[in-house]
């Protein structure tokens, strides 16, 4: 159970509480917690029937409203004690009369025979009802004495704090190692000590040629050019690799590569995800903000703070610092990008769940949203903590992208001057007023007593006014971001149902991480405090989770191999001390990512070869202990960008707004949702600038295991499919790139051998061997013939044959994998 020690006031079966009907979905792993002595001692057969058949059903189905734990006890009935069941609820009649099923109201309720039908929702399975009937016939044996008393906290937090990931970050001394080659950096010493302990012999170093390709892909996502390779190979100085790393970190491509990792985690999309999947034309500003943040090496704690509360933090800056103020507002696009649901505005609780789910996973490595319907089953996150956070987001106004019923976007934050801002605000207010009126008419709320004719007339008048208003749409700069809303605490949604409200929960922080609340008299939503709580040095998770992500993207797997889950169900660190060492250095550097990259890359372990060793393979088949470097396939964007790069046609400029239809033309429904056509997908800019839709994936990215735009992608899992092979053989994208590459290579060199040689350097970062050149020359000749045979004009055949050869290079494993 690791972190979680529940206090079991009643009985171990309490632990199956959350799962309606069929507890196996995740309870399989719930080890049923310390057995409480008293109840277990009385195990007479009758009681056993109760424990096996009756109590679990009461706990699962009834306790939420009928126990001392219920926030509001319904109908005055308590079923968590024998006395409560015998006494019954406010009707004054007993719920259970021993040996008299007919008089037991509990039974008639679950049989749904009378007006009182329980539990709400699906009726209990017939066999369960029979169990209850049998049990009452037996005399309703029930060992539960007395009244339950005050509801205990479900967790023992003192115990829970002992779980590794909640422990404060330590700064362990690197161990001593014998091998001098491994003694130069602390990271190497941590790694080698573990290898020694496991009796694993690390491989030797990768060649410089392999190394520059590896480092360049890791930091920039595009291949090194032939010149860059030559320069590195010729640089014999001891700090050649460090200079290479510095150059890569300083390139714009660095931000474009690493921002993509963050966008994966925050399930970035350019559309809303509602049933009509409304486009969000201004979302790109957030994407570009993330790229700039990486390129400027914005301290990670500030990076998080601005995404949670940038609009509030902007107020700290002087009016003159307009650009930075705007940037902070744009940063909160992180929150606004939460998924939208339905056709109206009434499923916003799901959007807030998505915010909490993502914030928990991305910034803390915790599945906080599991506590929406019940106390978290594995990690110490009470249901109340979820609603403490919920209140903060409920007090926040999210930009509204438009939905099927309310088509006009609203609550966007103006970025321009005061006059522009006023125009935008006025427009949005007018548009929403008209839409609300229209909807009231449609829904019949404002049309009582109106004739059908009259109603239609009014509706059409409103539609005309809306259309007229749209012609005056103020095209001013704006951000899809959040602002402060009306502050209020949330009420618990019982079993996650927003129509069944329970106790008020004051806004605050997760108990396990300190559980602070808002200061008295706080007028804001609480996001300002939340930003501080998340990034407070006393929170060990933020830094650990991020250094683990950085490590993961260099080595293919994290030190914790479940990067979004540092809880009880997640993996344990393979190198716990190394993880804390890295987190300590991260903190010390003022949370500099670039410093962390250098620290990790300038090590021996990063430069290991990606080969094989039969003994190690048996002892550590997963390479958990890093006896070699793991070969990896390029990810979807890398494949695409690399093809453009080697074809010489990659447009390296930063992407801007997508060619969405004009704001006023954005009108969609679930019947006709927004589907980005090929014309908006096509760009020769880097993959990070492609439209990311929620209802439909970009086809090339989807084929090569691109990120999920609906939920956080902690890591890409590369698959091998025939559809990928088809894309490499037949897609227009690959054919266009190979044609371009043929032109590039054909223009640069005039002999077949020289062309092949050059193509190898471009695509594979190495010269071709004489055998490969011969093989290539033969292919060109054969392909020329085949093209002519297929009717290609003789003068076009050589270029077509060259393109055919390029296609083979671009589809080859050597191109698609990094050693």
């Amino acid at each position: 159970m690791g972190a979680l020690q529940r206090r079991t006031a009643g009985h171990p079966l309490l632990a199956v509480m959350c799962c309606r009907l069929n507890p196996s979905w995740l309870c399989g792993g719930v080890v049923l917690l310390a057995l409480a002595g008293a109840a277990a001692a009385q195990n007479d057969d009758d009681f056993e029937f109760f424990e096996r058949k009756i109590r679990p059903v009461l706990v699962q189905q009834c306790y939420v409203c009928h126990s001392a734990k219920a926030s509001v006890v319904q109908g005055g009935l308590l079923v968590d004690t024998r006395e409560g069941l015998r006494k019954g609820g406010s009707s004054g009649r007993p719920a259970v009369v021993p040996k008299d099923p007919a008089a037991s109201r509990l039974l008639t309720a679950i049989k749904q025979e009378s007006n009182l039908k329980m539990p709400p929702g699906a009726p209990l399975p017939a066999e369960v009802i029979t169990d209850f009937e049998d049990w009452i016939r037996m005399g309703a044996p029930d060992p539960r004495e007395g009244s339950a008393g005050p509801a205990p906290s479900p967790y023992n937090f003192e115990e829970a704090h002992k779980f590794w990931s909640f422990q404060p970050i330590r700064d362990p001394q690197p161990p001593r190692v014998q091998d001098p080659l491994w003694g130069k950096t602390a990271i190497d010493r941590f790694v080698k000590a573990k290898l020694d302990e496991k009796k694993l012999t690390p491989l030797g170093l990768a060649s410089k040629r392999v190394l520059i390709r590896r480092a360049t892909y890791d930091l920039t996502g595009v291949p090194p050019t032939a010149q860059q390779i030559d320069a590195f190979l010729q640089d014999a100085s001891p700090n050649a690799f460090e200079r290479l790393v510095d150059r890569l970190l300083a390139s714009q491509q660095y931000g474009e590569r690493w921002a993509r990792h963050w966008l994966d985690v925050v399930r970035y999309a350019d559309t809303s995800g509602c049933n009509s999947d409304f486009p969000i034309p201004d979302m790109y500003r957030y994407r570009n903000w993330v790229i700039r943040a990486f390129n400027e090496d914005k301290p990670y704690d500030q990076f998080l703070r601005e995404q949670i509360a940038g609009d509030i933090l902007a107020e700290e800056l002087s009016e003159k610092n307009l650009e930075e103020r705007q940037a902070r507002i744009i940063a909160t696009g992180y929150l606004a990008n939460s998924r939208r649901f339905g056709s109206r505005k009434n499923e916003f609780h799901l959007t807030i769940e998505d915010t909490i789910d993502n914030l928990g996973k991305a910034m803390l490595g915790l599945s906080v949203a599991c506590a929406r319907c019940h106390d978290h089953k594995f990690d110490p996150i009470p249901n109340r903590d979820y609603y403490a956070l919920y209140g903060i987001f409920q007090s926040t106004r999210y930009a509204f992208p438009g939905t099927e019923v309310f088509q006009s976007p609203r609550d966007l934050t103006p970025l321009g001057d005061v006059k522009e801002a006023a125009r935008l605000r006025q427009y949005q207010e007018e548009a929403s007023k008209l839409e609300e009126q229209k909807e009231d008419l449609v829904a019949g709320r404002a049309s009582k007593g109106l004739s059908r004719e009259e109603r239609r007339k009014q509706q059409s008048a409103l539609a005309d006014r809306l259309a007229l208003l749209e012609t005056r749409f103020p095209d001013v700069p704006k951000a899809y971001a959040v602002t402060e809303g009306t502050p209020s605490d949330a009420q618990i949604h019982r079993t996650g149902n927003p129509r069944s409200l329970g106790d008020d929960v004051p806004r605050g922080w997760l108990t396990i991480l300190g559980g602070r609340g808002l200061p008295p008299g706080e007028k804001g939503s609480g996001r300002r405090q939340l930003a501080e709580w998340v990034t407070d040095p006393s929170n060990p998770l933020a830094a650990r989770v991020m250094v683990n992500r950085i490590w993961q993207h260099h080595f293919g797997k994290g030190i914790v191999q479940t990067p979004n889950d540092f809880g009880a169900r997640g993996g344990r660190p393979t190198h716990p001390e190394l993880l804390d060492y890295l987190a300590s250095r991260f903190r010390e550097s003022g949370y500099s990512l670039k410093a962390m990259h250098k620290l990790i890359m300038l090590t021996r372990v990063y430069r290991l070869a990606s080969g094989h060793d039969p003994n190690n393979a048996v002892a550590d088949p997963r390479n958990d202990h890093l006896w070699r470097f793991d070969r990896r396939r390029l990810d979807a964007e890398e494949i695409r960008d690399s093809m453009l790069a080697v074809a010489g046609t990659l447009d390296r400029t930063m992407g801007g707004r997508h060619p969405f239809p004009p704001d006023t033309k954005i009108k969609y429904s679930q019947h006709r949702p927004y589907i980005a056509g090929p014309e908006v997908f096509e760009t020769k800019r880097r993959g990070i600038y492609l439209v990311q839709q929620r209802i439909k994936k970009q086809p090339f990215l989807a084929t090569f295991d691109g990120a999920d735009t609906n939920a956080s992608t902690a890591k890409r899992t590369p698959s091998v499919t025939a559809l990928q092979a088809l894309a490499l053989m037949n897609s227009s994208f690959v054919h266009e790139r190979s044609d371009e590459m043929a032109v590039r290579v054909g223009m640069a060199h005039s002999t077949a051998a020289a062309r092949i040689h050059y193509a190898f350097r471009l695509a594979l970062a190495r010269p071709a061997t004489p055998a490969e050149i011969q093989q290539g020359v033969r292919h060109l000749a054969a392909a020329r013939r085949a093209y002519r045979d297929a009717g290609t004009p003789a003068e076009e055949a050589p270029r077509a044959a060259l393109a055919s050869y390029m296609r083979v290079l671009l589809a080859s494993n050597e191109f698609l994998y990094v050693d």
Partner: protein
Amino acid sequence: MTEQGFTRRQMVRSLVGGSAVFPAIVQQLLADSGDALAPKAPHFPGKAKRVIFMYMSGGASHVDTFDYKPKLAEAGKKGEKAPNGRAFLPAQWEFKPRGKSGLYVSELFPHVGECADELCVIRSMKGDHMDHFQATLGIHTGSVSFPRPSIGSWVSYGLGTENRNLPSFIVLAPKLPYAGSQVWSSDFLPAIHTGTLVEPGSEPVLNLRRRTPSDDVQRLELSLLERFNRKHLQQRTGDSDLAARLKSFETAFGMQTATPEALDLSKETDATHKLYGLERGSTQGFAWQCLVARRLIERGVRFVELIDTGSFGPANWDAHENIKSHEPLAKNVDQAAAGLIKDLRSRGLLDETLVVWTTEFGRSPYAEGTIGRGHYNRAFSSWLAGGGVKGGVAYGQTDDYGAEVAEDLCHVHDFHATILHLLGFDHTRLTFRHGGRDFRLTDVAGNVVHKILA
């Protein structure tokens, strides 16, 4: 299959290392490498080996098709009103008892009615949402709010496939349904289990069409590619991922032939065409989809989904204005679906093939406007045929008006649990760990409807 990044494939990569014998080692690697699509045994022997899942887009009315409600007709005639004040609207088509079983089917589906003795109609379906988008996700994934793997992806994940030259999960849909491609997404399951959209025409699968002007050019490319990849693999001992990719080009090349072959109906007899109501040479309509579905499952495809139309009304079942708009839609589906059942039966395939007919929700028994019906998730009908279900039976009942489930509720989760059971799965054990939780198609619910199992 854990999230911790350990796959059998990687293990194999290490274990068989040291040898560089080709191509035997490649075959060996592939055979042992936890190949995600290799045929797998379910939890217990299932009667159904494969599924054809017909989904009617927009919400097909239950009281006009498979749920006979004579009292609703009376109530309509008398002008009675539903508790919400709207007038009851009688079924707009006659119902008749059909077959030996006497199962009631309306005139909307006369051909399907002829197959009454094969059908198990579930008249007590209930879903969680009354909007198309969410309900469509619900009937496909079990979740109405968050995207999750489709039922076809779960089945592919659980059973693998019999024919590597075709995808394991194929979708035939003339238009995008509500919720778009999320309907056949594998979501967090491995991408190989994503539904592959197959369309009539020159490129039935994305990138299937050879873009080189001749087969010879492509063969030259693939043979050079294979030489490149083999040499690359030789220098990288025992990496089964590389070996699998090498092999994937062979499969892709096979798909280029196998897919058009599966879609080529020219060798189907006139009698077969007639049975489905398909004009020779046509690639339109549900008849084409049904006949192709039969050919696909004959070739080992595990799960074929047929979506009759897209998200755009009034050309789908979303009959708000006039329920009569069901007529052409039913006509498109009726003879084709019946033809498929008869054809499967006569070829001896029906016992091992589960045919499912469903929709995202039913339609209100009371009128919207004068003769339309609204969305209705509180009760609707679906049917199953073949694959281990009883024929000629109806399961569950709604009340006299078709307004509420009165008996034997079958929630969408129960429906899914039953389909998985027929395939040999305990739905509570067909799980995938993702984000710290073991997910399943039926979320935390679902009871197998044992009464309908043959």
